[in-house]
């Protein structure tokens, strides 16, 4: 290969395949985010539990997840868990690993968001005899969500950019697809460039979307009907 020779015909040929793999990437990110938000909230709420044992255990679980590489966790879930009788598809494993890993990060975001709610709001809720569930659902979380949006969005975009790690467990996402196309055709320039561009486009769109959500979100929070 001599110098830079971009082959447009080849580009159009491989684009549909890469786009179909992009669907897998986006699906993994979407499901991973939902799972991460749920896990993050669960971790954050457990860290505020009355029981010291629960608080400390969850602290160490979160610390453990954050301090070990995502790839190790992916491998562990995919190759070790079957030995305990739990085997999942690459996509399910990926969603689970991403959700758990980013859930640990998000729990810190949620925790500081919840901590940001004034003490008076908790006291008024207690004086009105609201249950702890009502207090979180109606009073605390609706006010805490807006400040959490930017950091949560950043983590979701970061998660999106880490989905190529799932290629290590044979998930056919964008990067894996580009590698296969490249090795079959002995041309890597177009597929990898396309993948890079798609990551760029998706990230920018997502960042803009998150900014819009934050901007439109009512300043004081929202109240359920």
């Amino acid at each position, binding site marked *: 290969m001599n110098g830079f020779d971009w082959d447009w015909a080849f580009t159009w040929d491989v684009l549909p395949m890469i786009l179909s793999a992009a669907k897998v990437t986006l699906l993994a990110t979407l499901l991973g985010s939902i799972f991460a938000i749920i896990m993050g909230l669960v971790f954050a709420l457990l860290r505020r539990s009355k029981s010291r044992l629960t608080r400390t255990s969850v602290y160490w679980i979160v610390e453990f997840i954050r301090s070990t590489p995502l790839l190790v966790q992916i491998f562990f879930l995919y190759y070790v868990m079957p030995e305990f009788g739990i085997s999942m598809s690459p996509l399910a494993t990926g969603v689970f690993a991403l959700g758990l890993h980013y859930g640990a990060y998000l729990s810190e975001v949620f925790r500081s968001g919840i901590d940001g709610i004034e003490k008076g709001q908790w*006291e008024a809720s207690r004086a009105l005899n609201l249950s702890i569930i009502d207090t979180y659902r109606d009073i605390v979380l609706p006010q805490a969500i807006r400040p959490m949006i930017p950091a949560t969005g950043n983590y979701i975009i970061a998660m999106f950019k880490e989905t190529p790690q799932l290629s290590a467990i044979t998930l056919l996402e964008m990067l894996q697809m580009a590698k296969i196309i490249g090795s079959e055709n002995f041309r890597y320039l177009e597929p990898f460039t396309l993948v890079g561009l798609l990551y760029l486009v998706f990230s920018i769109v997502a960042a803009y979307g998150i900014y819009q959500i934050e901007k439109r979100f009512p300043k004081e929070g929202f109240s359920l009907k």
Partner: protein
Amino acid sequence: MSAPIIEFKNVKKCFGDTVIFSDFNFKVEENEIVSIIGPSGSGKSTLLRILMTLEGIDGGYINVAGESLWHMPWQGQYVPANSKHLHKMRNHLGMVFQHFNLFPHMTVKRNITEAPMRVKGVSRQDAEELAEKLLALVGLADKADSYPNDLSGGQKQRVGIARALAMKPSILLLDEITSALDPELVDEVLDVIRNLVKEESFTMLLVTHEMYFAREISDRVCFFDKGAIVEEGEPEIIFTAPKEERTKAFLNAYIGQS
């Protein structure tokens, strides 16, 4: 005379090394209006906060409406109350806060209907009717759909009162409800309380720095200092002929100011 509706027996309360109450005894009769005055840091607000279960106690007993507040009977002895017991006991009490603590993300109406709907299972329609009635009572019928941040301090506090009343407490705790207000807004809030006690009988415990109001509304005034009642009695006597030097000094300082 029936049993007191509130009774503190040998109550002890500390914040770390700071002792607020070392052996505190106090009684309030049903439908009695008691004002608590005294220098800041003397434990006045803590007294209300303990009753509202916002602060625990480190010793002694408190009875509210014939039941122990912070303890419950279990297998023939009294043990620290669980959350279910506290939940039941809190139904007797309502509190209005110095800094209002309204829910800023909810309309005024929703601030008032939230607890009746969630805690008592009142239907939305009934809760809203009650909210409208209470808003009319505090003179804010036209503000039902406003948000707290669009209201003046005095209006916020009147919503705070309506919100507490919506739970129909038999004991109302007012914690320096006018201390955070501009002077010209104080009377609109106090007028609400004046009207309230005219219409209905309440057991009311108020911590206040408005001496003229304490004198006018109370059945009894307690002068608090360093976690103990230094002097208590009918308002006319406390304000015109206090016996204790500390009471005299405190009142002189206040009257000197205003």
